[in-house]
């Protein structure tokens, strides 16, 4: 925990209290202070924060009743601890997390959002906080959950946490960010109100004295609730110190008389003196004692899940419209993962658990061992803009030549593959078809894609089915039904042929396993017609049915002059003829589309068991296969009996 606190460079020590006051007064979900990192100038990192949103389980053994604001602070502290402990796991991923009061399962989605925010860093000028700081202007973001990720990089996270409104404004050389799960329309006066009323007053609530008395009953007035009436009463006590501090922290802000209540004047004075003597940057004194004593009270924590009593009554907020924002959650829901699988409505929920699984072992970049740059022994030389003279000769041919061959062509070499897992197989063999989560930015895209796919399929279907009217999808389906009936009849007719030839084929395949490479020697007698040029195809039709039925089993062995591929630039014309069989045309179309060919016309006819196909197509994209590859691929389809 101590290490965690040390990370918070340049953050005023009582800032968390101020954030607490601010965020609770307007009943928002969280407040974060992003501060400029002292280790990496130019980068905004987590400075401090206060969580005021929904809480699922509260684990503690409580000997004392904490009031609402102590509970809130304690929760924020516990969340920070949890983050630190998750982060600490990095050095030794296998090691168990050190005991933190909370574990990831105990968090609501909003808390998880808050926690993950701790790992973010922003370059100045980038992200919501970064741009706020760069421009010096507040940013009010409505509908944060669907914001473009360029505008708000955490939009996905926000969506899962139902955060809808996020505002950022510059403060104390850093940026204060506030977020809420409701849609709040832009209201500059709200920001002004927060700034002047709560943040820019020196506000030191937890003195060392009051801290050590956590075990005792604490005066309610010690609360972080901004009870302005009380504050006014105390103003004069603090007047001197306050002036000094105001000058220090926010020179441009007009002084403001509303100072929230502070009973422990003596400790306040001490802090005031600190403030007067130090620069903003050196506000690094930690109120360790405070966090320690909260922590100590937690040490014997026995993981009792306790219903969190609505804290509204303690907060004296003018507009209590929010009502029960501190939900009482059941123990049933303790298991975060379980909850996710039940709650399918929120697609992104599961991504959180993926993230949590991954991020438990990684935090911010840790500077690794630096490579010995320009080492004498190294084969590498330091990079120069011009590159090494004379050594770079970008090749004129295809780029990624070998890589593409490995990915696109080796697969084709293996051939005879089932290219698309069939639906029924999915169910039988337990193939999962994960639902792609509808992250907003791509939803439209995938829908469009799906529609495109559908139309494409209809086009293919239309071209496969001999029909008179290929106008609309309904008539394509009608024609298909008609055609299928016809085909079924055909199948029955050919059944006997297939049975006999299959037997033949299997017995033949065993001795010579390399069927595809053997020459067509023994198919020749029966297949003389195949060698003839395509102009003669009419002749083939004249061959009587018995002969072609026998041929059907022998096709495997023919070398396959029956596929011709001609290419003129992007246009590819494929002409095929081969013994007809069930689904062959479909497979051919599949193979064609797998070769990244876009077919714009398909003509097919069957005559006496011989299928004639002419496909006119174009290459899609830049993955042009050679004529030989197309031919081989189609031959493989034909041979797959």
């Amino acid at each position, binding site marked *: 925990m101590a290490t965690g606190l040390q990370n918070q460079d340049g953050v005023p020590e009582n800032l968390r209290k101020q954030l607490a006051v601010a965020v609770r007064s307007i009943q928002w979900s969280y407040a974060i202070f992003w501060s400029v990192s002292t280790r*990496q100038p130019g980068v905004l990192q987590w400075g401090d924060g206060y969580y005021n949103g929904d809480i699922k389980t509260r684990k503690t053994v409580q000997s004392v009743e904490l009031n609402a604001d102590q509970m809130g602070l304690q929760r924020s502290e516990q969340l920070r601890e949890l983050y630190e402990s998750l982060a600490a796991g990095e050095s030794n991923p296998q090691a168990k997390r050190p005991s933190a009061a909370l574990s990831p399962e105990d968090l609501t989605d909003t808390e998880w959002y808050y926690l993950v925010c701790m790992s*973010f860093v922003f*370059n100045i000028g980038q992200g919501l906080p970064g741009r706020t700081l760069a421009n010096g202007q507040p940013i009010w973001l409505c509908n944060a959950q669907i914001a473009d*990720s*360029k505008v708000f*990089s955490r939009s*996905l996270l926000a969506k899962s946490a139902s955060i809808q409104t996020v505002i950022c404004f510059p403060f104390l050389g850093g940026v204060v960010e506030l977020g809420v799960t409701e849609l709040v329309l832009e209201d500059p006066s709200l920001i002004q109100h927060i700034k002047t009323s709560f943040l820019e007053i020196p506000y030191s609530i937890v003195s060392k004295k009051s801290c050590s008395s956590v075990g005792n009953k604490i005066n309610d007035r010690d609360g972080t609730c901004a009870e302005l009436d009380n504050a006014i009463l105390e103003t004069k006590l603090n007047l001197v110190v306050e002036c000094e501090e105001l000058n220090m922290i926010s020179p441009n802000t007009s002084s403001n008389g509303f100072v929230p209540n502070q009973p422990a004047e003596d400790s306040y004075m001490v802090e005031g003196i600190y403030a007067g003597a130090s620069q903003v940057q050196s506000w690094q004194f930690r109120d360790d004692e405070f966090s320690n004593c909260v922590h100590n009270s937690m040490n014997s924590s026995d993981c009792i899940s306790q219903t969190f009593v609505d804290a509204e009554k303690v907060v004296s907020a003018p507009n209590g419209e929010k009502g029960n924002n501190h939900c009482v959650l059941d123990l049933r829901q303790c298991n975060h*993962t379980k909850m996710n699988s039940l709650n399918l409505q929120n697609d992104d929920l*599961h*991504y959180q658990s993926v993230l949590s*699984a*991954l*991020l438990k072992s990684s935090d911010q*970049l*840790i500077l*690794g*061992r*630096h*490579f010995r*740059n320009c080492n004498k*022994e*190294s*084969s*590498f*030389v330091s*990079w120069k803009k011009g590159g*090494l003279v004379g050594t770079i000769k*970008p*090749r004129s041919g295809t*780029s*990624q*030549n*070998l890589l*593409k061959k*490995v*990915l696109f062509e*080796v*697969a084709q*070499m*293996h051939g*005879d*593959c*089932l*290219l*698309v*897992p069939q639906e029924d197989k*999915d169910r039988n*063999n337990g*193939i*999962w*078809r*994960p639902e*792609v*989560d509808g992250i907003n930015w*791509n939803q439209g*895209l995938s829908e469009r*894609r799906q529609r495109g796919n559908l139309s494409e399929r209809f086009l293919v279907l239309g071209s496969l089915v001999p029909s008179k009217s290929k106008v609309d999808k309904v008539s394509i389906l009608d024609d298909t039904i008609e055609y299928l009936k016809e085909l079924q009849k055909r199948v029955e007719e050919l059944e006997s042929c297939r049975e006999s030839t299959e037997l033949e084929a299997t017995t033949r395949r065993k001795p010579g396993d390399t069927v595809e*490479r053997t020459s067509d020697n023994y198919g020749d007698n029966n297949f003389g017609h195949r060698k003839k040029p395509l102009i003669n195809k009419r002749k083939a039709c004249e061959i009587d049915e018995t002969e072609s039925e026998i041929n059907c089993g022998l096709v495997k062995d023919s070398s396959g002059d029956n596929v011709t591929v001609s290419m003129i630039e992007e246009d590819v014309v494929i002409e095929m003829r081969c013994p007809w069989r069930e689904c062959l045309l479909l497979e051919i179309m599949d193979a064609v589309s797998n070769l990244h060919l876009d077919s714009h016309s398909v003509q097919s006819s069957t005559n006496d068991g011989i299928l004639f196909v002419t496909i006119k197509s174009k290459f899609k994209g*830049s*993955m042009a296969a050679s004529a030989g590859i197309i031919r081989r691929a189609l031959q493989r389809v034909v041979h797959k009996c």
Partner: protein
Amino acid sequence: MENSTQESHLRSENLVTYDSLYPLYAMALSSSPSRTPHNHHQHRIAVGSFIEEYNNRVDILSFDDETLTIKTHPNLSFDHPYPPTKLMFHPNSTSSLRKSSDLLASSGDYLRLWEVRDNSIEPISVLNNSKTSEFCAPLTSFDWNEIEPRRIGTSSIDTTCTIWDIERAVVETQLIAHDKEVYDIAWGEAGVFASVSADGSVRIFDLRDKEHSTIIYESPQPDTPLLRLAWNKQDLRYMATILMDSNKVVILDIRSPTVPVAELERHRASVNAIAWAPQSPRHICSAGDDTQALIWELPTVAGPNGIDPMSMYSAGSEINQLQWSAAQPDWIAIAFSNKMQLLKV
């Protein structure tokens, strides 16, 4: 073991070259060194030929990083049907019971496992997930889970990824991962993997929740295939991918999907291979058609003009393969034409 037939021709203090009889593509570095009689460390390297025919070959070489020599072993070589699309040694073989032998996996038509002993190689298993036929869709790549070494995930052109339990030689899960061919797969956690595809997306899968996957990146022009994927094992927030016909290396942060955290654009031609440094979370090496291998150090803040590489090496021709092994973090292995080269980092 001492019957080496060939020693590397070219060697210097910082570079060792091996000439093969055929073009090389697949390559793997052993994760654990074995010892020679002289008590030198020897690292096994497997190289796979790329010949556009049925007969291809995988050779096991050994690299001695003290004498800077590469030895071949006539016995340690086997035939592979068509070129292997990927080779990989057991990622954590020190933990296995086998002392002097090593497990090697190869992908192509099937996922195959081989036991590499001192003087021989034995095929262990051929893993075929197709129950209905003897054919299974060809595999484009695979990744061996480091944390759970009994798991291997394969990617296939039939749009699926298959998770194998190699100890029991059974399919643990098969998922239809993408809309199009899956080109590469990478493990992040014991049960979390990511894949890239011809559909242009990077998706993350969690085996605890197979109902969902999450797209964390899509190529800017729809349907530009993503060819390779590398997950930073030192910092799982980051992964890198490359696009077809692109000179970019795209660096992704899984916490902020959709927009890459960085795009490395100093290659002068398309990139073919990427590998994260095994011992540093911020370094990545890339190699491409411009014959260069570039080492990049990812800055915390990118300048306005993009990121420059830290150092470079130029090979004689297009670099097709790149491996950076945890067992030898000082060495990067590249393959180009029919050469394999070990470069001192």
